[in-house]
């Protein structure tokens, strides 16, 4: 979401969407039992926001997201730099990574339930598995992108392995890592909410499932609205972070395919 000259029109677009969501049920195009008018959804949201339950659910979701993302980023960055820096290691692990990466993390749902129940750990298992690969792949691309001349120069100046990582590999890899973090942040949120929805870990997802099974339609829409807003916030946060961290990085880089 970039703030550009067209942001006034963007607001108009959002306003039109809200109006549409208000009018469609009011005019009876869709039964209000399936889609309550937008104002009713907002009223329901305000009511829920006054309850502590809502905030603790939101906090639970954010905690699972943040902890899982952190683990995935640290593990992905370290493993990526280690594997990427050693050509034999990269060659030996390539096929395994290509095989493990496309395994859908939801395949692990039953295992997570059996091992951890509705504990935070079952949510973390899904979140970490899904977001780890996003980070790892980008970091691997980044390490490959290190200028061989810079690497050779560092070596001939007698830089040790750690200083090479610090002064040569890291600056080149950082933009890729940030791309990986941005992609992983979105995936982590999807998996956190999925775990809550399907496994029943406490959080927004479980609240949505409860609202659905108790027929609280407006409440369900209100919570989905919140989930969408959290998603927008996560995207914005990741992009702001990326710009902050890479303020020195002049080039506009194409994303490595992931």
């Amino acid at each position, binding site marked *: 979401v970039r703030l550009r000259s*067209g942001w006034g029109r963007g607001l108009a677009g959002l306003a039109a969407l809200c109006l549409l969501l208000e009018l469609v049920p009011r005019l009876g195009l869709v039964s209000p039992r399936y889609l309550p008018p937008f104002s009713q959804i907002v009223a329901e949201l305000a009511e829920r926001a006054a309850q502590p339950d809502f905030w603790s659910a939101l906090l639970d979701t954010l905690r699972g997201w943040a902890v899982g993302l952190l683990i995935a980023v640290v593990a992905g960055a370290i493993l990526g730099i280690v594997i990427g820096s050693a050509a034999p290691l990269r060659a030996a692990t390539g096929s395994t990574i290509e095989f493990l990466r*496309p*395994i859908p993390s939801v395949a692990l749902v039953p295992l997570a339930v059996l091992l951890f129940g509705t504990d935070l750990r079952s949510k973390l298992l899904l979140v970490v598995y899904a977001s780890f690969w996003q980070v790892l792949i980008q970091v691997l691309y980044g390490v490959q992108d290190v200028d061989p001349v810079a690497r050779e120069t560092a070596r001939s100046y007698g830089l040790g392995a750690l200083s090479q990582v610090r002064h040569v590999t890291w600056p080149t890899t950082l933009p890729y890592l940030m791309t990986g973090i941005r992609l992983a942040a979105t995936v982590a949120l999807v998996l956190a909410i999925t775990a809550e929805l399907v496994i029943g870990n406490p959080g927004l997802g479980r609240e949505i499932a409860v609202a659905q099974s108790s027929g609280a339609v407006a409440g369900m829409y209100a919570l989905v609205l919140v989930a969408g807003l959290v998603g927008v916030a996560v995207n914005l946060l990741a992009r702001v972070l990326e710009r902050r961290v890479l303020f020195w990085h002049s080039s506009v880089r194409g994303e490595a395919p992931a």
Partner: protein
Amino acid sequence: MTAAARLARRTALALGLPLALLALWWVASADSESFYLPPLRRILETFADVWLSARLADDVLPSLLRLAVGYLAAVALGVAVGVPVGASRTVRDLAEPVLEFFRAIPPPVMVPILILFAGIGDAMKVLVIVFGCIWPVLLNTVEGVRAIDPVLEETASSYGIRGVARLRHLVLRGASPQIFTGMRQSLSIGIILMVISEMFASSNGLGFTIIQFQRGFAIPEMWSGIILLGLLGVLLSLLFQAVEGRALAWYHSVRRSHQGGDAP
């Protein structure tokens, strides 16, 4: 190194670690008494019994069919909406925040909402997949159409290329690398949603069956289901790469020649 030796080396590198890991799993779990971690041998025996049976037609095929229908519909819709949005500055400004919001909704939360509209049948599951898969395709199409080389555009119009020919040879082709990026993101979302929609409410399908095994504590069966899902994920990703490689062969060769003939 001769070509044969190089091939042998590459094969050894590609297969070495996976085989070592499998062997490790096999050996480490061989005498496993743990209820949740049965021996790999038993899981593989179960795999054949469970999946190479009527289940293949009753559970695996319906899941894959719903995925195929939902995914292809999402790609078609995403491109069909993305092209006009990307082509007009005004429409793009109007629609972008709305599209960004819809993309930011974690797609699994649409399952309960779509159950309201479509029940728990095939229609709901296909709709869930369409809803989840459409946004990456749509937004990438918008970006791709927006970024079409203006010189190419001028050239096309001065040669009098317009209408369907312009759409096909300039717009869709120019945007296709971006469209494929979106399609790749959508595919992994689609697989997740195929499984989730069945875990949440269903009477058949892969996700449903695996959850049934878990609830019934049929542990080797459950593991075989996890392995099957993993294999499907890998196969679909290989299939996608093959299709993409073929469709974008022109693009990759152009890029290679720009980079001075080096393989990327």
